[in-house]
């Protein structure tokens, strides 16, 4: 039945997902417990899931449907944020949770999943790969061989793939080829949960919904851009995984380059998935690829003291727990403007923000009276977490006689201006995948472009031995990161 709903009221009713089964591979894992299941429950609580919505979990551990429901009940109660937990709603939601145990290497598992999907009889299926990345190809092959990967009339089959998408450019291409043997590109959703954050989406609203900022958004007015994602915690039991990844792969290649693309991309002609993604991809392709001899000047690796003592970590590990890099964008708008990007663990605080530093006033009209700089550059801070918002720093006259200036900050706090609860990134992205909106998902050309941007650094670091550890826990990273900016006359905004 495909008839327009006569009772639609988009102004007051939230977007709702179609009848669907979500198959989660890795359903016993941390991501499912901490993020996916709380997000799905919350969507049910908000009446955004249809009554017939079903979830089929898979992992190797044998579990009955009821045991799976009990596990998820515990997880949702524990990890649900900003929301009440309602037992009645849970009971209704849990009725549609099912479980099929099995080894991902066993073709029989996919036949069992196919049979279960037939039994559940929902027209659409969303496969969610929440497994270890090394199993992505195996799962896709299994779905293909069992004949349950292809969309059919009246029902789509989509796949959501968690990052990392490959571990370098070549492996990303290999994985993509494997996926496309089963799923066409329009049914592949590569998730980067940073893009689902309200504050990242707000960058687009800020840039393209206002007339006053865009004219300044270019090399004439912007001196440089700093993107920081710092964490105060260490690897927290994920040492074995992190040792293989490192900050460059884990944060910069995906999250931070996507954020950088959102900050620097050209406006799209329309706000439609492919138009927006075309612009992001174009920007990522415009990132200047470092020459081998430039890598030591434009990239800094760090490792905090104590990382090698973490469980699962090699005592001589060369993994970067901190990375800082300078990127340049080879296009008309950004030529010559450095984009400094850094991410690290065990830093002084957890924060993700983007600082756009504008050029100083061309003529120093107001002389300094205290030996400091007469004026400071305007700074626009786009805060992603933990306090989503925007601040603009500008100079103001200090009250009193004389003309002494001091910087003041004009703040917009996302939470205080829109006190409504913001959906979590996973709620947003799950709904988007189910309604077929890929705007906030990455595309293969974007993935490849961002691997291409970091590949020279990966290659260089693979051939070097660092004298790690080189920064203390609770500091802002190694001194070389400061030196990297100092060479351009800049300094990190450490606050």
């Amino acid at each position: 039945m495909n008839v327009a709903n006569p009772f639609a009221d988009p102004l007051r009713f939230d977007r709702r997902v179609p009848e669907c089964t979500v198959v989660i591979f890795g359903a016993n894992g941390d991501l499912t417990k901490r993020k996916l299941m709380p997000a799905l429950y919350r969507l049910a609580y908000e009446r955004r899931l249809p009554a017939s919505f079903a979830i089929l979990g898979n992992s190797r551990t044998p579990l009955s449907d009821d045991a799976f429901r009990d596990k998820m009940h515990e997880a949702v109660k524990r990890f649900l944020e900003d929301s009440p937990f309602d037992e009645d709603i849970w009971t209704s939601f849990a009725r549609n949770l099912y479980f099929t145990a099995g080894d991902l290497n066993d073709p029989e598992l996919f036949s069992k999943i196919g049979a279960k999907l037939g039994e559940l009889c929902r027209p659409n299926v969303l496969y969610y790969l929440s497994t270890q990345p090394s199993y992505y190809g195996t799962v896709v092959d299994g779905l293909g061989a069992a004949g349950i990967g292809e969309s059919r009339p009246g029902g789509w089959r989509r796949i959501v793939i968690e990052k990392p998408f490959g571990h370098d450019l070549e492996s990303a291409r290999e994985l993509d080829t494997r996926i496309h043997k089963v799923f066409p590109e329009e049914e592949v959703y590569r998730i980067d949960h940073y893009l689902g954050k309200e504050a990242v989406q707000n960058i687009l609203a800020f840039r393209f919904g206002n007339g006053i900022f865009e004219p300044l958004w270019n090399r004439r007015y912007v001196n440089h851009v700093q993107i920081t994602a710092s964490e105060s915690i260490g690897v927290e039991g994920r040492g074995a995984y992190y040792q293989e990844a490192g900050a460059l792969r884990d944060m910069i290649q995906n999250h931070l380059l996507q954020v950088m693309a959102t900050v620097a991309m050209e406006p799209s002609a329309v706000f439609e998935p492919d138009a927006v993604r075309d612009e992001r991809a174009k920007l990522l392709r415009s990132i200047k690829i470092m020459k081998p001899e430039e890598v030591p000047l434009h990239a800094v690796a760090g490792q905090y003291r104590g990382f090698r003592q973490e469980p699962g970590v090699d005592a001589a590990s060369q993994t970067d727990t901190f990375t800082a890099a300078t990127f340049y964008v080879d296009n008309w708008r950004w030529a010559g403007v450095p984009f400094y990007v850094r991410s690290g663990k065990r830093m002084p605080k957890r924060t993700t923000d983007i600082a756009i530093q504008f050029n100083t006033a061309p003529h120093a009209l107001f002389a300094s009276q205290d030996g400091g700089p007469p004026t400071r550059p305007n700074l626009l801070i786009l805060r992603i977490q933990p306090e989503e918002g925007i601040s603009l720093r500008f100079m103001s006259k200090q009250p009193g006689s004389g003309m002494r200036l001091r910087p003041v900050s004009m703040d917009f706090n996302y939470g205080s201006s829109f006190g409504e609860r913001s959906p979590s990134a996973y709620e947003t992205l799950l709904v988007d995948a189910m309604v077929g909106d890929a705007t906030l998902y990455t595309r293969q050309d974007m993935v490849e472009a961002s691997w291409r941007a970091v590949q020279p650094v990966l290659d260089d670091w693979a051939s070097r031995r660092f004298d790690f550890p080189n920064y203390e826990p609770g500091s802002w990273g190694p001194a070389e990161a400061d030196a990297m900016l100092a060479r351009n006359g800049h300094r990190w905004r450490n606050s």
Partner: protein
Amino acid sequence: MSVAVQPEKILRELRELWDELGRAEETPGGVLRACAMTLLVAAEEQGEAEQVRKTLGVLMHDHPSRAIVLRSQEGSGVEARVFAECWMPFGRHQQICAEGIEITAGGAELSEVVHVLLPLMVPDLPVVLWCRGGRAFTDPAIEALFPLADKIIFDSAAASDAKAALQLLRSLRARGRRVADLTWTRLTGWREVLSQLFDDGVLDPDAVASVRIVHGGSGASTCALYLTKWIEQGLPGARVMVESASDEPGIRAITLLGGSAEVSIRRTGPSCVEARAGGRSYRTPLPPVTEEALMREELSILGPDSVFDRVLA
């Protein structure tokens, strides 16, 4: 802090209040002033003050505004005081504050106060008038506030004469004023659950022959009238019947019949409804809505609301 009602004095008082807040020891990071609109509140009697303050306190977090509360108090002269509503967002070291002005006037003076309000509105931001209680439907002094507002929010459930209340809303809408009725807002949850049945394709709209609405409380409520009209507009071929039940006020159940199919939504508890369709049933939350939640919903819609406009017409 009381002042005679002169706009300049009130604005000066507000400035002093901000200075005071900025100097306060407990706010070393200063305060952040937030304002997205002017919210005029036409409140009823003195006794309501506490409730209004509580509601505004919650609303300010979502819709920070300059709140101007007008209260009538027989026998009093005209008095004004300014106040701030401050809160510390989680994880922040800087307070956020929104400002308010409370003006108390005797019934006779209330109409004069209207002239004081214009300079007190925050320029360049929308003005929303919230007519709390039933007085707005009968008091000409409040009617004089209507032209000041971009949107006027009523609650027809508080009116002594529901038909007259609807008539007023219709006439304002016909004159181009943007109006809202919290009685309609209370129906959002029910309407959404009903709408979802059609999203899911449980029923073909053309196949629905009749709809039965059961509501509690006595007399014809605007709530049942609104729901009836909305359903009639969505299902022009269906007969819509309204039954009252000796139950708590509000919608209790909606049943749709078409051919051999029967779909029903009924309240099963104070915060839950159960939908039954095609042999399946599920529960969905529908908790009682507070005044704050209703206002929050309405304040987030400052543009045209075509669905309500059609129902009101």
